[in-house]
Every structure is written in C-alpha cells, then in structure tokens.
C-alpha cells in the first residue's frame, strides 16, 4: 500500500502535483467544528490561496472534512457520502472527537475512533482546532499527496471487509447498496 516518491511514475508525480494544489472540500458539518470552517475559508485565513475551495456535491469533492463527533446516525450518512466520492479522495478527521471521542468518549451514541470506519489521511487534533491548525492540517495533507502516500481510498478498497465489519457492528440497520467506484 505504501509507495514512496521514488516508486512513483512521472505521470503520478505530475498528477499529484496538480491534486495537492486543488483540494475541493466537502465539509460535513456534523459537530461544533463546522463553525471553524467559515473562518478558515473567509478573508482572515484565506484557504483558497492554497487551492482549497468548497465543493457542492460528493461527486465533485476530493476531501471529506469531518468536523467533530459522529453519532451512529450521522456516521451512516458520512459513509454513504464517502463512497459517492470519486477517486482520488481523502478524509480529514477534524477535532479530538474523531480521534478518541473527545468529550463524548463515554456517550451512548457517538463513535470514538473514526479510522475504524473510514480511512483517515490526516487528523487535526484540538477541541476546537483553530483555523491555523486547520491550515496546518491541509498543508500536511498536501505534503502527503505530493509524496504519493495519501492513499486512504486504496487502503479502504483493499481491506474493505474490515471496514464493513466495523461499520455494520455499529450501524444496525444497514440498508444501502454496496460501494460504487
């Protein structure tokens, strides 16, 4: 799964160079973290200068930005959205809720660890992470893409049954069709 820069072909290097500078973000504003995204996009910390801009629908998006805790109900939607996105696609876990549940670590309905259910490329810790931290996270993602090692989607495809098992363990009413890429 891991392929470093000298394993990449030339065309991959060019493509990754383009991808890292145009990240279309689908911000899934589930938690309180959604309030930090406008601050990141607008005039004070202008994320568009890094090529980061919002996307309207999953079909057009590259990055799935999961801001904050995920209840079981929202996790289902997030998984569907992620599987509707087209390759190459990346996931950014945003805030400590996605890392270990954060302040909801013992809640009866929120998952604690996002990377059991979706392949997370970059975690941004903090509660809440300030826009500087968010930009730092985007910079990290760009660096990984440039190296060609931000291949969470590939990882998701390769051990899909692992992820499916975890997802189905949490989501009892599993009623949507299988992945489409």
């Amino acid at each position, binding site marked *: 799964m891991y392929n470093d820069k000298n394993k990449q072909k030339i065309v991959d290097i060019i493509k990754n160079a383009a991808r890292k500078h145009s990240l279309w973000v689908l911000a899934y504003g589930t938690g309180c973290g959604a309030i930090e995204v406008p601050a990141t996009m607008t005039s004070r910390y202008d994320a568009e200068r890094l090529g980061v801009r919002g996307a309207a*629908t*999953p*079909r057009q998006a590259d990055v799935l930005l999961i801001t904050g805790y995920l209840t079981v109900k929202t996790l289902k*939607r997030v998984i569907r959205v992620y599987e*509707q996105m087209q390759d190459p696609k990346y996931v950014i876990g945003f805030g400590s809720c996605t890392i270990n549940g954060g302040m909801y670590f013992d809640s009866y309905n929120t998952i604690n660890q996002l990377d059991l259910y979706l392949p997370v490329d970059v975690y941004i810790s903090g509660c809440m992470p300030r826009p500087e931290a968010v930009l730092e996270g985007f910079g990290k993602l760009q660096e990984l893409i440039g190296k060609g090692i931000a291949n969470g989607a590939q990882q998701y495809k390769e051990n899909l049954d692992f992820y499916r098992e975890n997802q189905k363990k949490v989501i009892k009413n599993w009623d949507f*069709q299988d992945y*489409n890429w």
Partner: protein
Amino acid sequence: MDIINIILVIFFAGALITAFAAKISSIVQDILFIGTILATSIIFFLNINTNTETIINLSHINLTLGLTPLSLYFAFIVFGLAVLAGFYAVGQMQGKKKKGYFYFNYLLSIAAMFGILVSKDLVSFFIFWEIMTWSSYLLVIYNGENVQKTGIKYFVLSAIGAYSMLMAIVIIHSLTGSFLISDLISGFNNMSANMQILIPVLLLTGFGVKAALMPLHIWAPDAYSNAPMSYTAIFSGALSKMGIYGMVIVFLTLITKLPQETLIRDIIAWLGAITAAISTLWAIKQDDAKRLLAYSSIGQLGYIVVGVAIGTPLAMLAGLFLAFMHGVFKSTLFMVVGAIEKQTGTSNLKEVTGLIRKMPWTFIAALISIIALAGIPPLGGFVGKWMLYESLITSNHYLLVTLVFFSSTAAFLYCYKFLFGFFLGQEEKEWSHVKEAPAIMVVPMLILSLISVVLGSFPQLILKPINSALSYYSLPDTYNNLWKESMIFNKWGDQVALTPIVYGVAIVFIVFAVFLFFKNRKTSRYVTTKDISTSGEVPKEHENLTFKENFFQPFLRAVEPAMKRQMDKYMLAFAKGLEDLFDFTRRIYNGNGQTYAIYAIIFVIILLLLSNNLFS
C-alpha cells in the same frame, strides 16, 4: 379515365370496403387499409403529371380536376404522411374498437385532401373541403369523450369557415359567371374595390380556421388532443396544411393585385406571430403531452402563416419549407406520444418518467424531432427558421421578427418539458415493466426523423419543388440567388453553407463523445437514478425525487400578464351575451354549443352587413 379519378375511386371504394371488412377479419381490414393507401400513393408517385385536366360533368356544373406544381408539393406531404401514419395506425389500432369507423374516416379524409389539392374549380374545392371537415370531425369525436366540449367547437368554427367560403364562392360566381379558379384570378382585376377586399377576407377566414389562425384557433387544442394520435399526426401534419395551401393561393394570386396589399399582409403576419407567441406560452403551461403538442402546432402554423403572409420569395420559401418540416417533426412527436400512451396507458407528463432506457428508439425519434422543432442546426428545422428570420429582417419587419424570435426561444421550454417529462428524470418502479413499442410503430417515426436529419444538410431536395411551385405563380426564380445546392442566401447576399456546418458539428461531437465515452466505458458502471447526492440520506422506495410539479413556474409567473386573457373565454362571453340578447332563442336553443352555432350565423350576417354598408 384519368389518373386522378382512378385514385379518388380507389380511395372511396377502399374506404367503403375497409369499413365493412370487419365482418371478415381484423387482419383483412388492416391489409385492405394499407393496401388502399399504398396503391393510391404508388399510382400517384408513378405518373405525376401537372398538365392534365379531367372534367367531371355534373348536371350543368363541370368539376375540373388537375394538378399544379403547388398542389403537387402539398400532395407529397399528404401522401408521405398518409403512408407512414397508416402503417403506424395499424400498429396503434391493434385491439381497439371501432376500427372500421377509424379506417373509413382516415381514408376519406386523405381522399378529401387529395381532392382539395387537385380541384381547379371552387365547387369541387368546397365539396372536398366539406368531406375533409366531416371526416376529421368524426375522428375528433372518435373516443366519445366530452364530445359536447370539443366536437361542437370544431364543428362550429369549421362551419364559420365553410359559410364564409361558400359566400365567397357565390359572390365570385355572380361576378365572374364561372367557378374556375383561373377565371377568378383573371377576372379579379375588374371587380369593384370592396369586392376585391371582401373576397380575400372571406376566403382567408375559411382557410384561417383550418390553419388555426389567432381568433379562430380555439378548436385546435381539444380537437388535436382528442383524436387518435395516429390520425392527429395527419391532422396536424397534413390537414392543417390545407389551410396554408389555400392561403398561399390567395396571397399569390389575389392579394398581390390589391392596392392595400401591404396592410393585409401585415395584419395577417401579425396575427400569425401573435398566435405563435400566445400558443407557445400556453404550451409551456400544459401538463398533458397531447395538449402541449397541440398548442405547439398552433404556434408552428403561426410561423408558417407569417412566412406566407409576408410573401417575399424568401418568405414564401421559408413558409413552405416550414410547412413540410412541421409535417415531418410534429407528426413524429404525435406518434411518439401515441406510442408512449399505448405502452404506459397515459400521456400525462407528470406521471410518466424515465423511459429513456425502456424505449430507446422512441427516445431517439423524439430527440431528433425536438431538435428539429427547436430549429437548432444542423437539422431541418433550422433551415426554415433561418429563411424566415432573414426574410423578415430583409423586408423590414423588425418588431415582427423579435416577436417570432421570442416565441421560438420560448419553444425550448416546452421542448425540454416534453423530453424530460417522458424520457429523463427518475426511473420509477411503476414504469419498470414498460417495453419498446412494436416495430410497425417505431419504424415510421425513425423514417420521419431521418428525413428531418437529411433535410438539414440537403434542403435542395425540398427547395426545388417549392421553387417550381412558386415560379408557376410567376414569382421570380429563387435558384442561385436565394439557394444553391446546400447553401441558402438572403437578399443581402449573406449565406449559410449547411454542409460544412454539418461536418463541423459531427466532427466535434464525435471527438468529445469518444473522449468522454470510450475512455470510461470499461471503468465506469451504470448506477440507478436513486444513487444521487442526497446529502448522505439513503432515498427510500416511496420517497419522491421527481421534479414535475410547477415546471417553469417562475417563467410563467414572469409572463402571467400575457396569459390572463383567453380568446376562448371571449368567444364564450360573446355567445353568452347573444344568449341574453335574444332571449327567445333560449327556448329554441339551449346548451353551450348551440349558442356557438348562433354566434356562427350572426358572425356571417355581420360580415354581410359590413360588406354591403361599409364598402358600397
């Protein structure tokens, strides 16, 4: 015995035999029906001869029959559509009741149209005109639903037309002493001035009814949508062209001799343009595909009337070309609606969705015809539209061309409504069982849409006979100065060369289609229309993701003032006023349609009074 009589005899005999062949078997009936049409059209196309005249001698009236180049051109439309729609009708009438009734009236109206085209004197013209009206009337009330509403409207307005035409004929005979059209044309100069006004106005009233001109169009939507679709293809494609045919003759022969020529021309042209605009807006409002197409054909006839009324050579070319094109694509669309109605049982745009994968061939026919209707290059509709606009611009009708352009741009809206409503959009479970229509119905559609594709790049096929028809009525020869092989010019010498356009469009389209399609064919797979970005929600079966209600509502809100008043309501109000005025008639006549009938008679009387008081 002459060829024309043979054709007519075959028609009438075939009609009678087909009507009574139901006793034997239904298949025999179909075979007889097809056989009659095929035999007549083959005989016609095999020995076309424009300089023979046959005289049928009634007691002391001679019916003179013969072909002119113009009637030959219209006969092409009639026979071509008759054959194709005939095959389609056999497919569509499978398992329907009253087949004999349908076939009889169908053949009778075809025969009547042919008779109109070949009649060189007014008596036979009138006789055939009435036969055509009655046969089509019987088919309008074919399914027996709300006959009162639709049939009476059609009957009364046809009666208006017939009365005024009869009056015109009587006046002409009293003035010239002959029924021959040629005598009318020759003797028209030495008539009195008010007769010179009256006769064309009466004739145009008669023709305007069939051509669904603005004040006389109220019958068309109901009639078109109530007749069986296989006949509506003829009705809108060919029968309405009879009105155009008469108008062309009147404009070419009578109006040109008048001092008030430009005034009458402008009035009729503006009537046509207003007809086009208003009926386009109404077509956008409709939810039933039949009514949508009915209003749209009124609009298209409006363009044709504009072209014919302006009457410059280019405008005549445009009008006649559009007449042919309208016959082609509009009958295709009516056939499409008929096929969909046969397969799904309804023609309501709100109910049927997502048939594109179920009925692909029908979709292809519908798409091509819609593109032709919208007048988008490189299909045939564009040629007619181009010539119409150029003729209007070069003959200084600037506001008229703007109005026509508005209506033809607004036409995109109902075009898209038609396509989206039937074929695109969500694929619902309700229609998952639908199959493609039988081949006998699909093939005529595809043939017709192929014609409109071919005419887009080779318009000379049609422009040549139009040219000969026009030169027969002593218009200047348009070859080489208005069109040349596949190039069309306007008066100022600006040109459109159609062949390179077709090549260019084809090349670019193929390149990008290949770029998109054949690169992704293997990697990508089809997903259902439920699998769309619904912000993560998984749509359930009962969830409605179809957008059908209030299609184009913002646009209709924007144009609401134009659609407030309806000619239909005015006529009803006028009839109501007559009811109150002549109170005693309420004992004799009662019911809505009858008051229409009074209105008809009163209308004609008023015309008479006007003619005697104002002009003399």
